[in-house]
């Protein structure tokens, strides 16, 4: 811990947080922005901070479980889904009291389930293996000085453009008539939440035996304050605590802004750039009829852009005091795989209408079957991808 908790790092983190708070205050008073934009920035910062402090990285946590390095981190994702799903049930049952009317709750990430979603989940999973993380992971890793993350994120933009160019082709044949299953429409809110919690509890029971105890017990700190500071600011948070906070932030975000997602802005930037360059015609058939990490041709920062910006700033506020901002040059081929993996991430996220955050987290919390289908396809791809990478 020699490089952690230096006054300079603490000051930098506090300045970042002050900038986020000031930015939120200004947004709150800006005409046509107001509190949703302010909350988008704040929730993004909170999310980035928690992602960084608890290492809420889908790929690393799943890889650790697959490779026998402990299943504890995956429990963080399970906790996020349990807390988020419970909160979503409360909100949805208030907003759409009767789930059997054939209507869907507003804005929720409930997507079509088709072979395209499976293919998108597989592409996304392989992209994670190649690039070393998912999109939200790369975003928060910018704050840890990851030199691969910028390549992966650039690849993501390219992948989005490729996705847009494939969209019309797959939409008509495979997506347009695909079902959009939403569990409460048949099971009600109570039944859907009960089922979700039962599945998550079963998952937790399967994962529990594989939890590894943290061998690096903290050295006795000089004072209780120092001990607290180290537990919060330096050491990795317990995954379940981090996950539970992610669940709370997801519910707050759905309530105040929109369901959590990190690709709408990135996708919109890609779509705008491609449209400006004449690579896309102006219309993508049917795309704008789906809820999810919707993309549009934009020329202003959306609330999702504020959330993503906040996420990166929050992650810096988490990484700096912990001494975890450590850029390292990587060999060039590694940047090549980051870029290629990023292309798969973007391609998968475009066709799935979101990523691990938008489709998996926000989708499963919203009782959408699409969230589970994407999750299973992604898990299969990670499993296969890991076997493959070990061979080479």
């Amino acid at each position, binding site marked *: 811990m020699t490089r952690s908790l230096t006054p300079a790092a603490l000051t930098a983190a506090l300045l970042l947080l002050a900038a986020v708070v000031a930015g939120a205050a200004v947004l709150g008073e800006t005409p046509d922005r*107001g509190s*949703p934009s302010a909350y988008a920035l704040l929730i993004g910062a909170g999310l980035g901070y928690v992602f960084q402090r608890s290492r809420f990285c889908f790929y690393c946590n799943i890889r650790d479980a697959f490779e026998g390095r402990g299943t504890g981190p995956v429990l963080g994702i399970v906790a996020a889904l349990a807390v988020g799903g419970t909160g979503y049930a409360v909100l949805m049952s*208030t*907003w*759409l*009291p009767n789930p059997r009317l054939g*209507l869907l*709750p*507003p*804005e929720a990430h409930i997507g079509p389930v088709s072979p395209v979603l499976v293919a998108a989940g597989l592409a996304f999973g392989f992209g994670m293996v190649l690039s070393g993380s998912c999109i939200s992971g790369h975003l928060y890793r910018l704050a840890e000085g990851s030199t691969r993350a910028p390549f992966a994120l650039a690849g993501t933009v390219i992948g989005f453009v490729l996705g847009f160019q494939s969209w019309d082709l797959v939409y008509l044949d495979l997506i347009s008539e695909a079902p959009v299953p939403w569990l409460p429409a048949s099971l009600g809110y109570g039944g859907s939440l009960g089922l979700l919690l039962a599945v998550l509890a079963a998952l937790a029971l399967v994962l529990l035996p594989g939890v590894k105890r943290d061998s690096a017990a903290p050295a006795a700190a000089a004072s209780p304050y120092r001990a607290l500071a180290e537990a919060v600011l330096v050491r990795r948070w317990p995954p379940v605590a981090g996950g539970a906070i992610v669940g709370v932030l997801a519910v707050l975000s759905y*309530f*105040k802004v*929109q369901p959590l997602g990190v690709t709408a802005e990135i996708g919109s930037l890609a779509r705008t750039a491609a449209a400006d360059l004449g690579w896309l015609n*102006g*219309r993508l058939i049917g795309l*704008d009829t789906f809820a999810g990490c919707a993309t*549009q*041709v934009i020329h202003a920062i959306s609330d999702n852009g504020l959330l993503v910006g906040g996420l990166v700033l929050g992650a810096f506020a988490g990484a700096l005091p912990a001494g975890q901002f450590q850029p390292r040059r990587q060999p060039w081929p590694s940047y090549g795989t980051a870029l290629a993996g990023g292309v798969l991430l973007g391609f998968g996220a475009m066709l799935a209408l979101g990523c691990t955050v938008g489709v998996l987290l926000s989708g499963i919390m919203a009782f959408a079957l699409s969230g589970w289908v994407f999750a299973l396809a992604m898990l299969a791809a990670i499993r296969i991808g890991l076997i493959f990478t070990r061979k080479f």
Partner: protein
Amino acid sequence: MNIRQSLVRIVSAATLMITTAVAAQAADGPLVSTDWLTQNLKDPKVRVLEVSVVPGVYEKGHIPGAVNIVWHTDLVDKVQRDIVSKDGFEALTARAGINDDTTIVLYGDNNNWFAAWGAWILSYYGVDDVKILDGGRKKWEAEGRPLDTATPTPAAGTFKVKDTNPALRARLTDVLAVVEKQKDAQILDIRSPDEYSGKIFAPPNSQELAVRAGHVPGAVNVPWSKAVNEDGTFKSKDELKALYASVGVDGSKPVIVYCRIGERSAHTWFALSKILGYEVKQYDGSWTEYGNAVGVPIVNVAGTVWGGK
């Protein structure tokens, strides 16, 4: 009693008098203020309806007691490309708790864009007492007034449609009759100047298009947004009168308003008919019907007929 106490009493009494006056003031015009609505929210004869363009806005916080009207399912018959049927409308008024003696106050986002459309449909089906909250969501939120997230379930309304008001609605044949000089009326296009001239077929990201760009021959152009102030309220009666008179629309002849898909123009219909008292029909077929119709003339000053030059 010391001076401070006297002052407090005087101020309280004055405040009470003003608020009582506001509450008692019958909202006899087509618009109600945020103050009036605040005072009358608990009145069982007042029913507040939100019609917002953006889905999810209502759910995250609406005026307490307001019922949500979803514009693209509650107010249209998609299969017929028509406004909601009489049966569908009665189902909606029953769900919203509307009776014959209910005062309806509509509001929404985007400067009451679709709230005005709701007002047009309610008026078409013969609901008498239809008002709009001046400034809509924008002003209500800017003033920091209370919002609620609970979805109210009012007792079923008993309103039944007696007569419709076809005089409020123009059909393609009515518009053509004016174009061909068989009827005398003024046509007002409330789209953007670029749509009016034919430079663009529709605003960016619009899915519903016409095969030709341009406008109805003889139509004048006043974009709908010119009727509102920065705070979302309608401009004053005199300002509105001057605005429309500047293009020759002064109420001396019947007016037909249209837009692209027939919703935005309801905002101008409300300004002209309800605030200024002119005789106005809304052509809800609008440019997507007219521009696509076979054998009808258009004006295209931009030279972009059939998408070519």
